């Protein structure tokens, strides 16, 4: 048996097959139990990696349910590289079709929010523009668009994802009443202090933020919204350091 055949048999055994050919221990009755150490290491370490990325999902479903879910997910969509921070992009879509979690319809969107937070944490660095530069751009809004920090993303949901996320942070006691069937939009970014807050946006702010993310001019991004949305959003983006450049258009 060559080495490729051996590793293929070993891998199959990690997910339920018999121990690979040639595996032995001084006491042959112990082979299965000894092989189980590898089986447990793989399942446990990947489950913990997923839980680190999706702590609120874990808290919502409970540790045992999460571990059982992870064991199905990691076989269906295992990490494609040792960079575990890049693993889990498909977890939200998996949860959508994972029958045992169907009762929690908001769970996939919570996973989407947590995925974006992880991406924001590791996103590239970029320094903020000065307030003066923004003021100058705002003076001629039809010609200027904003470059936003690489960490900035939005998660739109027909569920109250921001409220659910906030209510399930460490130290928050569960039990408060929360109406989940209410649309919320989350703005996610990494701020100047390297924190990754989740900021609830109104519908108007979300439209404005969406346009800014797509590179629309300040004029286009604020058109159709009442001025108050931009009045809150732009200073907020400035304060957290999310405006990293001004692009001149035309």
């Amino acid at each position, binding site marked *: 048996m*060559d*080495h490729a055949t051996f590793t*293929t048999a070993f891998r199959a055994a990690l997910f339920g097959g018999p121990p690979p050919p*040639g595996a032995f*221990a001084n006491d042959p009755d112990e*082979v299965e139990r*000894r*092989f189980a150490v590898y089986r447990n290491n793989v399942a446990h370490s990947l489950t913990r990696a997923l839980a680190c990325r999706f702590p609120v999902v874990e808290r919502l479903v409970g540790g045992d349910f999460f571990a059982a879910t992870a064991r199905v997910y990691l076989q269906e969509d295992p990490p494609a590289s040792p960079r575990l921070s890049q693993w889990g992009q498909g977890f939200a879509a998996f949860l959508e079709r994972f029958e045992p979690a169907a009762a929690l319809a908001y769970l996939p969107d919570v996973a989407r929010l947590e995925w974006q937070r992880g991406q924001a944490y*590791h*996103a590239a660095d970029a320094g903020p523009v000065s307030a003066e530069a923004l003021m100058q751009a705002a003076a001629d809004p039809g010609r200027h668009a904003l470059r936003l920090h690489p960490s900035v993303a939005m998660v739109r949901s027909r569920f109250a994802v921001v409220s659910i996320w906030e209510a399930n942070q460490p130290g928050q006691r569960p039990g408060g009443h929360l109406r989940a069937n209410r649309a919320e939009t989350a703005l996610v970014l990494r701020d100047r202090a390297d924190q990754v807050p989740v900021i609830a946006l109104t519908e108007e702010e979300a439209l404005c933020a969406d346009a800014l993310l797509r590179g629309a001019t300040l004029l286009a991004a604020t058109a159709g919204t009442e001025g108050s949305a931009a009045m809150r959003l732009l200073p907020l983006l400035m304060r957290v350091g999310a405006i990293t450049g001004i692009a001149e258009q035309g």
Partner: protein
Amino acid sequence: MPLPRAPGLGFKSEHFDAIRTTRPALGFLEVHAENYMGAGGPPHRQLATLRQDYALSLHGVGLSIGGPDRPDQGHLRRLRDLISRYEPASFSEHLAWSSHGGDYLNDLLPLPYTPETLQIVCDHVDEVQSTLGCRMLLENPSTYLLFAQSTLPETTFLAEVAGRTGCGLLLDVNNVFVSCTNHRTDPVDWLASIPLHHVGEVHLGGHAREDLPSGPLLIDDHGCPVADPVWQLYARVIAQAGPLPTLIEWDNDVPDFPTLLAEAERAARVMAQAAEAV
């Protein structure tokens, strides 16, 4: 510049402030390379700060050197970028495999020791060293099973890889104790048959214990203090080889920083006592 022959600690981000404010006397800090492969953010800022005060040891867990396939080229490129950015004093990896068919399994899986796998591992170490442009250290694993197809003792296998490729060895004394206990062999014999002059770094970590009908099954979990028999083996190594860069690994149930530092100080005492005895 090689790692200082002094104790070092595995860096945990929760200890960043403690290290930065107290600047403990440590020979080096070791980090897992894969945790610094994001585009930016706090991990890189922390590492850039730490390297101003400490030598760095870059320790990989994902190259899958013991697997049948060539090391992943993207992963090697990311390692090369990290090395040129942070200029670590050492790069090390494991005698194990962790990827299969493009999937990453996140564990250090065992291989039979045969002429075939020896050639594979040597080829992979050659490729890693030529791509990264530096000598690497290869770490002995903790194992829980043996393989009937193995024809070479682990120590012979490691010595052959070091001899053929010019790589150094990372001697994990806890792994020696864990594997020898699990396979009912004597760790002193294991240590007597490893060429200590190839050893560029020592690892010390904690292990867990289960009980099987035939005796203990030790599991390398880095979740507790280094066990006393491991300290005794370590003292034998140091008495023979002299002081070596020595890492305390504690990756799970990570304690507060003073507890971790006390383990490093214990390693320093072992090295000091060996020096006095000479």
